[in-house]
């Protein structure tokens, strides 16, 4: 892996473009998807079929007055949105888009991604606490307890995958799953431990929905209860950065799920692996995020925490034990 400057620059620009476009056009997909689910058209006046809508939103958000209200912790108030955006962007470095498209094959990339995810959680806490608004404080307390509760089952399910492939590097995990869908971790037909992997896939998917604060777990930004959650005091680009951070977290969650469980860039029939299969899988998962959001109401904070502490964590540990036993046996 030669470390020439051009390669680094190329990947830097590539990641920025991928992240920027995704953050903007996921908003468009969400509004169009919501429109279809709710039997209406969604933005279609701005440019062809509303394609210029995210650009119009971006321009408007850029040109709005950035209000910093009094009684606000200046430093933390300004860093929170930036802190929400950085981890999502940097975690794109470690994701293997395809065999030869990967910014840097970092040794313990799975751990890196989870470390960055918890920094993202810090941003929500800082944003809510710094803006001094009562609704924001309640929302940030909820967000931290929720992310904490759902990170543990997520990590435990990741251990089951790592047990299977024997390496903490995303690239190795993806390489081990090449060659047709029966090699994917979700189905894993040979040497018998196909029983438990789809359970960990389901637990992992639930936790990634909860990790990115998406309905039905959007306790942090609960519009109808806490006005606008931790984003209440943020006006133009502060709010814009938080929204981009949220959408990028969804993209990173989807990338992680595909790499760990759905065989990364591998083609279902094992013929033509490539980056396009990776993108197709990501966008299918992202569409399910959107689909879930617009069909389910919101759960109540304590039932949500009970779901994790009393149900998901025991299940994921049991799943871990069974997988370990099966690997030992076969």
């Amino acid at each position, binding site marked *: 892996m030669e470390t020439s400057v051009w390669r680094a620059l190329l990947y830097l620009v590539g990641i920025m473009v991928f992240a920027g476009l995704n953050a903007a056009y996921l908003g468009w997909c969400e509004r169009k998807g919501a429109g279809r689910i709710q039997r*209406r058209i*969604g933005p279609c006046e701005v440019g062809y079929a509303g394609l210029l809508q995210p650009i119009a939103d971006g321009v408007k958000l850029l040109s*709005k007055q950035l*209000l910093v209200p009094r009684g606000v912790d200046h430093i933390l108030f300004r860093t929170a949105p930036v802190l929400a955006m950085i981890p999502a962007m940097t975690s794109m470095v470690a994701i293997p888009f395809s065999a030869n498209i990967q910014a840097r094959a970092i040794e313990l990339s799975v751990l890196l991604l989870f470390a960055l995810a918890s920094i993202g959680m810090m941003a929500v806490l800082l944003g809510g606490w710094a803006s001094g608004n009562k609704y924001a404080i309640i929302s940030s307390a909820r967000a931290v307890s929720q992310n904490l509760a759902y990170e543990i089952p997520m990590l435990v399910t990741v251990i089951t995958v790592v047990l299977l492939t024997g390496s903490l590097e995303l690239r190795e995990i993806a390489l081990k799953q090449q060659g047709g869908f029966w090699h994917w971790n979700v189905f894993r037909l040979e040497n018998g431990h196909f029983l438990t992997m789809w359970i960990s896939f389901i637990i992992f998917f639930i936790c990634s929905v909860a990790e990115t604060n998406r309905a039905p777990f959007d306790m942090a930004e609960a*519009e109808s209860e806490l006005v*606008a959650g931790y984003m209440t005091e*943020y*006006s*133009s680009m502060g*709010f814009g950065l938080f929204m981009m951070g949220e959408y990028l977290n969804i993209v990173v969650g989807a990338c992680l799920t595909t790499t760990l469980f759905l065989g990364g860039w591998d083609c279902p029939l094992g013929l033509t692996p490539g980056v396009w299969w990776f993108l197709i899988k990501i966008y299918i998962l992202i569409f399910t995020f959107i689909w879930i959001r617009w069909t389910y109401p919101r759960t109540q904070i304590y039932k949500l925490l009970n779901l994790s502490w009393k149900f998901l964590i025991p299940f994921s540990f049991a799943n871990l034990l069974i997988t370990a036993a099966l690997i030992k046996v076969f």
Partner: protein
Amino acid sequence: MGEESVPSSIESVPSSIVQFAQLDKLLNLGRANSLWPMTFGLACCAIEMMCTGGSRYDISRFGAEVFRPSPRQSDVMIVAGTINKKLELAVKTLYDQMPEPKWVIAMGNCAISGGPFKVKNNYNVIEGADKLFPVDVYIPGCPPRPEALLEGIMTLEEKITGKRRWPRVESC
């Protein structure tokens, strides 16, 4: 602030000292096409505002369906209903909390002039939202139909960008 000092709706927004003609045009286009209203429904007109958000009239075609609950993230305040003396302070603070390029649509007769409650012994209703802050577009009706609200939004867009999106329907 009486009616005479209200600028006519076609006149362009007074711009800053340094004139970036093209940049201003681009910014205004962006602002006009993504007007995020603030959910501020007071009375009957709020139900018509919700109907405009529904599937039949679908305000989301103009990119305006993101009803932001917090005044910090909204551009246009649609005053849909009656403002009375007890609510006056709350309405003014909400208007002040909105970041700068902000507009106000007075929806319904109550917001324009107190409407059916502009009576002889009126002890509690403020007769018109323009007594509190400058209003950009007035939509008459009690309550105005959802199409009227869409027309109001298009008039506001014309006021921002100077060009009208669809040809104006000549009143026959």
